[in-house]
């Protein structure tokens, strides 16, 4: 199977380039297995990966133009030559390894933890099954970054727009019955950039390997903001 892989070593290469590789594909092989084979052909080749089962979120790459997790992308689904690039819009550290700091800064900025004003009870804070259900489709995010790095608004303003991942997380805590900082969270999202750079393009929904829907979460935030301001 034919592969064209993005290569760039800032210490040696003046320009990034695409390098061709040939990989012996077997039934059931995932893209990550192919990348590992490529690494045995060229030890200098770098990419991130860990769990191998779509859980850790470390091996997001751009395959034939779409952001995917290499470990759960079957080779059988890919058209040849398979063009593998790093996430678009991120500074390249080496080959497929990119700098995700801005992505994590945006995550941190939405305060991804429960904020309680009441004194904490001795036991757990209980939720009804319905309250718990509101978190479905939100808590499953593995922070792989496939969504934010496919979002044009995040490409243009990664420093000021939170991006779909962080906004999904913002909604995850706004929707949590145990959280007591909704007003502060909403105030924090005000202004034209952090939330409102989202133009509902929905690339994020298409990219998410966990089939989450950041666009819907963003819509929910906007509606809640509207409700609270009238």
């Amino acid at each position, binding site marked *: 199977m034919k592969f064209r892989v993005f290569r760039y070593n800032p210490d040696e290469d003046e320009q990034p380039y695409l390098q061709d590789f040939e990989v012996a594909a077997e039934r059931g092989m995932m893209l990550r297995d192919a990348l590992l084979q490529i690494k045995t052909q060229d030890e200098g080749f770098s990419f991130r990966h860990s769990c191998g089962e779509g859980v850790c979120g470390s091996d997001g790459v751009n395959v034939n133009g779409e952001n995917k997790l290499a470990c759960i992308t079957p080779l059988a689904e890919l058209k040849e030559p398979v063009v593998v690039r790093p996430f678009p819009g991120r500074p390249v550290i080496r080959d497929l390894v990119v700098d995700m700091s801005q992505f994590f800064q945006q995550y941190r900025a939405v305060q991804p933890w429960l904020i309680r004003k009441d004194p904490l009870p001795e036991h757990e804070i209980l939720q009804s099954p319905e309250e718990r259900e509101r978190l479905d489709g939100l808590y499953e995010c593995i922070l792989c970054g496939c969504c934010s790095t496919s979002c044009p608004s995040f490409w243009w303003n990664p420093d000021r727009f939170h991006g779909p991942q962080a906004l999904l997380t913002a909604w995850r805590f706004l929707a949590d019955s145990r959280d007591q900082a909704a007003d502060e969270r909403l105030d924090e999202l*005000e202004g*034209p*950039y952090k*939330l*409102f750079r989202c*133009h509902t393009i929905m690339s994020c929904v298409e990219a998410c390997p966990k089939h989450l829907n950041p666009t819907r979460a963003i819509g929910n935030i906007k509606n809640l903001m509207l409700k609270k*301001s009238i």
Partner: protein
Amino acid sequence: MSRRAAGLKAWIWQRLTAIYLGLFILFLLGRLVLDPPLHVAEWRGWLGGPLVSTASLLFVFALLLHAWVGVRDILMDYVRPIALRAGLMSLVIVILLGCGLWAVEILIVARVG
């Protein structure tokens, strides 16, 4: 409104004007299809009626506001240098205001003439 709402306001105006634009266009198309005016005088008379001319004026206003939010978004996304962005935004405001005044003039003429 307790919030500063710079982002929220623009978003709400975009939605509200979009709804009005859609409704008015349907109304206009409906009239053109169901009861097409046969000559200029009839068209003018219709447009000059108090209800229709007020609705049209509101339409122009909504259109300009909608255009402004959209163009502002594009400029905020793509034009990073602040001076250039401010310049372009001012230019757009002048053009949109010009269009608005012109449309008002047309409606007044339709009413008076």
